[in-house]
């Protein structure tokens, strides 16, 4: 739920990083915190256990620029990766404007990715939010590891696409970030499907972190336009 404050001329939006445990959600926020100008970001708040696992959430506010005289302020949150913290995961989704699913590319984490994705859909549905109708991007993290699954496999497991019901959207829409790939396309069976935008990342080195943030922020602002 974005908030437009005419008095301070700010548009505030909430973005949540979701995904399996140890997938790199907190690392994404730490990289953003470390690389943006100090005057464009607030404090990084972490509610974590003694072993640095996120207990409730991490939080970082960042300013991404000005549009029509309004400062665009994004509140970035992560959720705990562990399923047993589901109650707090769900709380963080309240009023969300955009979602980043941080998937772990490692082959052996495929099941954990799928479980987290299903859990995301379920928790969103409980709030009456439809993930397929709101700003949503996927980040495939840890692309540098030797046991990383091919993108094709990750896409078919986590981002197979949802059916397009609106006939006005039934036209081929190229993926602006991956040449030769489409976000909306028709399957050989005749069915039209749409996929979420995806980004490849190595969050520990910062690679792909800002592409992901820019991708989701742009979708959020366009959803308000």
């Amino acid at each position: 739920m974005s908030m437009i404050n005419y008095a301070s001329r700010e548009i505030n939006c909430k973005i949540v990083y979701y995904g399996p445990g140890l997938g790199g959600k907190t690392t994404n926020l730490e990289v953003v915190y470390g690389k943006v100008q100090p005057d464009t970001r607030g404090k990084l708040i972490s509610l974590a256990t003694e072993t640095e696992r996120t207990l409730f959430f991490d939080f970082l506010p960042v300013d991404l620029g000005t549009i029509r005289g309004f400062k665009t302020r994004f509140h970035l949150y992560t959720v705990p990766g562990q399923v047993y913290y589901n109650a707090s995961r769900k709380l963080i989704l309240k009023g969300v404007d955009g979602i980043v699913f941080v998937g772990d590319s490692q082959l052996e984490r495929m099941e954990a990715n799928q479980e987290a994705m299903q859990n995301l859909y379920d928790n969103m549905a409980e709030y009456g939010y439809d993930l397929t109708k709101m700003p949503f991007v996927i980040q495939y993290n840890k692309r540098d590891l030797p046991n990383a699954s091919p993108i094709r496999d990750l896409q078919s497991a986590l981002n197979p696409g949802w059916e397009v019901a609106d006939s006005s959207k039934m036209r081929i829409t190229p993926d602006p970030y991956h040449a030769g790939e489409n976000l909306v396309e028709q399957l050989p069976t005749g069915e039209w499907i749409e996929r979420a935008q995806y980004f490849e990342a190595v969050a520990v080195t910062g690679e792909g972190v800002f592409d992901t943030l820019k991708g989701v922020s742009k979708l959020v602002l366009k959803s308000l336009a």
Partner: protein
Amino acid sequence: MPVGAASWSFTEDDFGAIRAALETFLTDCNARCALLVDRSGQLVATVGERPTFDPTAFATLTAADFSANDQLAKLIGENDFNSLFHQGEKESMYLADVARRVILVVLFDNRTTLGLVRLKMRQTVQLLTQLFEQVFSRGATGASTPNILAGADDEIDKLFQ
């Protein structure tokens, strides 16, 4: 507008009315500072002494505090806790729900008493509830403020180049 992203906005007139209600409240109960935070963690307004802490972080933690306590309430068979009190050695804070969408937080020290704060808070919450219900109903009907980002697609693209 996408499902689940029901936006709301308030005008400078709304802001003025909210500020006036909070300023009266602070004077009446001799508290230091009042903050309004929406349930998703956004800071809506600050009135009174300028906070010495980071108000954005404070707002986020307040919303999380309230949400966590809502869940605790449900576990013990209550629908919610409509107010919370945190007592410190010198500084204390009292939080109350406004119209199920916003949280009023008041910070006070030993220049006043919890009883007085609680008493004045009740009246202020009623007044703010009326004000916010008007803001929300206007947002829900769609006949609200003009969409400032309408047609700004090109500008948004440029921002991310």
